Each structure stands twice: as C-alpha cells, then as structure tokens.
C-alpha cells in the first residue's frame, strides 16, 4: 500500500500528460481527505484527462471536500472553475446551492453555466432542513427556468437535464410547473438536439 504522501508526490513529479493522468487516477482511488488540496490543484492544470480523474476523486471523497472547494473557487481560471462546479454537482451538497444558483445564470463562461445548471438538478435535498426544502427547490426551479433562455444551446440543454432531475425529485406542484414549462419551450427551441432532450424529459416525467 503506497502512502498518500507518495501518491501526492507522484502527481507533483509527473513529467508528461499521461504520467499525470495515471498519478491523479491513483490518488483519486485512495479516497483520502489528505488528497483534496492536490486534486483541487489539478483542476487548474488545463489537462482535461487529469481534471476528469480529479473531479471523480473529489466526488468520491464527497462532502468533506466541499469546504476546501468553496475556499478555492475564487479564481480567474474559468476552466478550473467549471471543473469545481462539476465536482459540486457530483457531490450534491446543498452547501454549494447558492453558488450554483448564481453561477447558472451569471457566469460568463458557458462551461461553468452548464455545469451549474446540471448541478441544480442533482442537489441532495434530504440534506436540506425540512422547513427550507420548498424554498430552496423553488429557487432552483426559477433559476433553471431562466437558464432555459440562455444564448448557448449547451446551457439550455443542461437546464433541461436539471429540470428533468428536479421533476423526478419534487412534489406534484413542481412536476406540473416543470412539464408546462417544457411544453412551452419545446415550441420555441431552435436546436433540434435541445428539442430532443425536452421530449425525452417529457416522456420520462410522464
């Protein structure tokens, strides 16, 4: 069994893209909280393979990675920001809810907006205090409705997936509102691919 320190050292000493990917995958598999800072750092390396592995590692570690992710989010590197939002989305911790609400409609980078829209659909609502759930879901719903008007097709697509997941989670009241909204935007959507995703959501939400 290699120690976490050694695994981290391998990441720091990797001298090629492939070596970095291998080292990050090994570190991610260890599911250790000690790996969090290094995995976060990898998100800024502009190496998509390693970043995917690091995001997966952070998701596996789960909620204990959230505070450090939040602390490090204030960055000018929008590539890294998008990966962090993906990690939040995968972890589903409501601690990131406000951040996702804001990012989904205000971030200048479309990769960040799309990751946030996706994440709003997969929040772990059981972790929200019962008296606050309805309000939080209403916020997510309204933000996703707004995101369906985004200028980029991929953000609209992501917003549909968010509404689809939210529709699976939430009580009847939201389900009806979501289905109505989906039917409404189906008629206006110019991209055939986004239309298809709306259709899929409508079929599966019944």
């Amino acid at each position, binding site marked *: 069994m290699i120690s976490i320190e050694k695994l981290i050292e391998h990441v720091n000493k990797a001298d090629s893209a492939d070596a970095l990917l291998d080292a990050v995958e090994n570190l991610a598999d260890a599911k250790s909280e000690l790996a969090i800072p290094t995995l976060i750092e990898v998100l800024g390396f502009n190496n998509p393979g390693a970043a995917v592995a690091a995001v997966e590692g952070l998701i596996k570690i789960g909620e204990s990675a959230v505070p450090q992710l939040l602390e490090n989010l204030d960055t000018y590197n929008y590539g890294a920001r998008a990966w962090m939002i993906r990690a939040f989305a995968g972890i589903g911790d409501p601690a990131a809810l406000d951040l996702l609400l804001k990012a989904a409609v205000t971030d200048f980078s479309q990769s960040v907006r799309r990751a946030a829209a996706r994440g709003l659909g997969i929040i772990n609502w059981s972790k929200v205090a019962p008296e606050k759930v309805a309000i939080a879901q209403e916020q997510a719903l309204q933000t996703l409705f707004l995101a369906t008007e985004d200028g980029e097709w991929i953000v609209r697509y992501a917003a549909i997936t968010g509404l689809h997941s939210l529709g699976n989670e939430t009580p009847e009241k939201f389900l009806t509102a979501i289905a109505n909204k989906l039917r409404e935007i189906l008629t206006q959507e110019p991209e055939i691919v986004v239309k*298809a995703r709306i259709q899929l959501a409508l079929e599966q939400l019944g």
Partner: protein
Amino acid sequence: MRDEEGIREAEQLTLDQALENLRQKEDLGLRYYAAWWLGKFRVQEPEAVDLLLVALEDESDRAPDGGYPLRRNAARALGKLGNKKAVPALIRCLEFPDFYVREAAAQALENLDDHRCVPSLVKLLEGGVAKAEFVTGKPHLVEPCEAVIEALGTLNATEAITFIKPFLGHSVAKVKYAAARAMYQLTRENQYGEILIQALSVDDLQLRRSALMDLAAVGYLPAGAAIADTLAENSMKLIALKGLLEKNLDANSTKLTPESIQIMDYMDSLL
C-alpha cells in the same frame, strides 16, 4: 496572432466602417481586419461580397514569406458569407502560388456547397500520395490536401473517390483522417468511421480533437461511447455528440430512438 488583434478591433467596428475600411487602400491593417470582420459576423450585404472579391485580387498586402494575407482573409470570409457569386473567383484561387490562399479557397468552397469546383479540387490531388510531400523548410505539404479532401467529402463528390482513397495511407495523420472522413461521407462504409474512432485513442490531443470534429461532421453513430471516453475537453465531446445526434434525429424526426437516447445519456454525463 493577427486574429486575436482582430477580435479586439471587432468590438469597435460597424458594418459601414468595415465596408469603408475594406474599400480604402492606404491602411493595409484596416483592410485585413475588415475582411476578417465581415466573415466573422457573416455580413450578407452584396457590397461586402463585391469588396471581398476585389480584395481577393489584392497585390499590395504581402507577408515576409511572399504570401498574400489579405487574399487569405478575403477567401476565408467569402466562405462564410454563403454567396455563390464568389465561386468562380475562389476556383481561380486554387491555382494561386500562395499555399495559404489555396487552402483558404478550398475551405471556402467546402462551405459554399457548389459542385462546380470539384474538378479543380481533384486536380490538386493529382499525382496522389507520392506527390503530396512537405515543401522543404515549410510546415505544409505541396498542396492543401487536408482541406481539399474534406471539401470533396462535404460536397459529396463521389467521382473523387479514386483520388481520395489512396490518401488513407498518407504519412501525415491529419491527411489520413481527412481521407477517412471523406471516404465515410462518400461511401457510408463503417470501416472509414472506425478509422476515426481509432483516432480518438492516439497520443496527440490535437489529433483527438480533430477526430472529434470529423465524427461530428459525418455523424457516425457507433462512435458515441468512444467520444464520451476520449481524453479531451467535455465541450468538444459535447459538440461531437451533438453532431451525431443531429444526424440521427434528421432521419427519425418524430420519435426518439434508443440510439438517440443513448447519445443523450452520454451528453448528460459530460455536462
């Protein structure tokens, strides 16, 4: 580099200013930016096409390598404006001495969807792989084979198949993949789509990106899983999967097939 400067310039230009900048002959930089701008914003004014056609004959803007920067930009822009009036002039550009003008013209002709250019494009492939070598001291081949082959594929020039097929054995990977892409477009045989799938697992990130765009362009449906798995930016994978899905939906516009739903599952996982 010049394109980046052009992006800054673009924020300040208006249509009238762009046309005026292209019309004047004193400031070469302004003409160059204006040509780029008109293409970038896909200006549909007939006057824009006419001025770009004049720029296509320009002699004054010369690069240190003897090339013609304004002509290159004008050819690129004409490809984006979608006006077939430009086709005969672009065909003439295929014989111009500046390699990059020939390349830009081939790419523009690919976009204009006009079959008249096919014989001239095929001509650039004559001599086959043996003749398609690097020019000594230059980063490019004798002819812009990659652009020519891609154009012939997009233009559905089945008469060019015998000229394109040997390029599957070209030593330059990008040329080889361009040939696979075109051969798939022209024959719909899976063996050519499979070559592009293999390209998704090569070591070179640029080649993987380029294979993603090729698969998107041809909409090769069996590539879905390989696209989702390849090591590249999710944004590019999503665009590639969008291309696959669009092709699949065209054929089945009323109902979602299991294949379409599978592609959407891949897309969801990459958001």
